[in-house]
């Protein structure tokens, strides 16, 4: 894999940080403007399997937590906008922390593979605090209006989701 040039690396890191700030502020219209129309947005969680396990063909396919196109993402966003999502009122504190950013060239000139690690901190009600981590692999594309996220594949690190809702994006 070929490392992207420094200016591309800086530009994409800037995009990731900007995106994280929009997501933490629940500015979903701003976030959607960073996504390509054909966005493929997915997340799954690990299965605990023996390394030597031979039941691969019989083993079930992993059920995704998210497996969304633009229409599905917009449905989630519309739900937040209804004003009926009681769990998010009062507004909860959330921080999206992005780290370990690496940017690589792809076979296509204007597309880049971006790896990163995301840590989400949520603070709700009184002393309730949750911390979720996930690894992300993105495909970003240069368009006329700047960089757009085309594809994100993430894996949550926990085998059991340790929060009672995922009223946020990662």
């Amino acid at each position, binding site marked *: 894999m070929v490392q992207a040039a420094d200016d591309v690396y800086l530009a994409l890191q800037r995009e990731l940080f900007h995106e994280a700030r929009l997501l933490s502020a629940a500015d979903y219209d701003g976030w959607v403007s960073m996504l390509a129309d054909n966005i493929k947005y997915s*997340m799954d*969680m690990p*299965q*605990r*399997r*023996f390394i030597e*396990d*031979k*039941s691969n063909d*019989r*083993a*079930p*396919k*992993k*059920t*995704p*937590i*998210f*497996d*969304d196109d633009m*229409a*599905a993402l917009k*449905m*989630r966003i*519309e*739900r*937040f906008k*209804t*004003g*009926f*999502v*009681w*769990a998010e009122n009062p507004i909860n504190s959330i921080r999206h922390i992005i780290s370990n950013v690496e940017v690589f060239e792809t076979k296509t000139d204007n597309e880049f593979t971006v790896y990163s690690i995301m840590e989400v901190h949520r603070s709700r009600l009184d002393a309730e605090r949750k911390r979720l981590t996930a690894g992300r692999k993105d495909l970003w594309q240069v368009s006329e209006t700047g960089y757009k996220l085309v594809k994100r594949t993430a894996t949550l690190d926990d*085998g*059991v*989701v*340790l*929060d*009672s*809702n*995922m*009223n946020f994006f990662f």
Partner: protein
Amino acid sequence: MSKLDDLIDFKTGRQKRVIYSDPDIYEQELEKIFARSWLFVAHVCQIKEPGDFIRTFMGEDEVLVVRQKDGGVKAFLNSCTHRGNRLCKADHGNKKTFVCNYHGWGFGTDGALNGVPLEKEAYYNKLDKGKFGLIEVAQIKNYKGLIFATFDEEAPSLEEYLGEMKWYLDSWLDAMPEGTELIGTAMKVELPVNWKLPVENVSGDGYHLGWAHAGAMTVTSSLTVGGLEVGNTGTDNDGAVSVAGLNGHTVLAALDGQSGYGFYPDPTIPLQYLKDNRETVIGRLGKYRGEHLWGSQINLTIFPNLQMLPGLNWFRIYHPKGPGKFEMWTWAMVDKEMSDELKQMILDNVSRTFGPAGLFDNDDGDNLQAITEQSRGWRTRQMDVYTNMAIGGEQTRDEMPGVVSDGLVCEQNQRYVYRRWLEMMNADSWADIPNYNSLEEARATEGK
């Protein structure tokens, strides 16, 4: 009257909040309910070949469910008989031998202790390996693809335990010739909630749909179940029923034969599937179930901790982890005959509506957590909560078994769930637990 009797009043629909927070009550639940009930442990599709296994829980006890060489199924405590270490850490897989990580004791898929390191040198060949096999459950049985197990030798047969609930279960499990299968892996979520709260919620609480899920209902839009609409205003419940009085098992059902697919962005494909196969199902289940139950939105609760929603196609079990915590495992369950396209559509929909980031599921956690927390304070835990809606509406209907009330907005089912809870908590053995499957039997056994 036992001390426990004051916790539940079946007639008036009252529960003491302490049942959601008290550690002593929880300990009794593990013994009197989870150790005596038939609990779901695996779907046959999860363990097809000899050596295939699933790691799961019966109450707080961890068990391995293993397909045998002769095609049978056994379930064992997932604990080495030497020093008690966890035997298997994988969620599922295939094994010829389960070897303990601590000292290397090896157990066959039949649970027999086969290998002991230094058997000659350290045990002088005097270890009676026949006495150290894995501990099996007392009974294990398959009902139309669902494998249940119990730790209680005295428990009635699974058929008797399910009783007339089988009539409703079959409207999914036995509707199509090839039966059902789970697709995808379990979506697992840990919630800081007492385990009974999701059970009562899904068993009978149609009341919360329009309000708690107003946001999700608005964006998925097409759902109108039994006249219930966004905003809690629709209580015209013709065409929907709450059914209980089935040994603690309950049913909440729309009767229109298709509403379950109203949540789908494009219901065309599932509705076509129903249309193409309805005659087959009528042939197998008869006209009433074929027309009114199959394809409808239905909540099925098998006491104490298994729930399935044909129509939305989700299948869920709750594993208790203390009075204020449980793990929820959710799968998509489908008819085997469905096309790959439809199966994928169902899997996507189950994940999107009732997965860890589900549009609907994400509304319930905070409410149920708050109820758990509001049952802990010195003053709040002495207080009551109520399921006193539609008292006196219980009927018998010729076309279906059990105690039937009109509509989905009705708390009859929760009252019966808590009645069963109390019956099991009070009983010294299965001989003291009443058996009822109709209004007449439910009345005759009330308070006995």
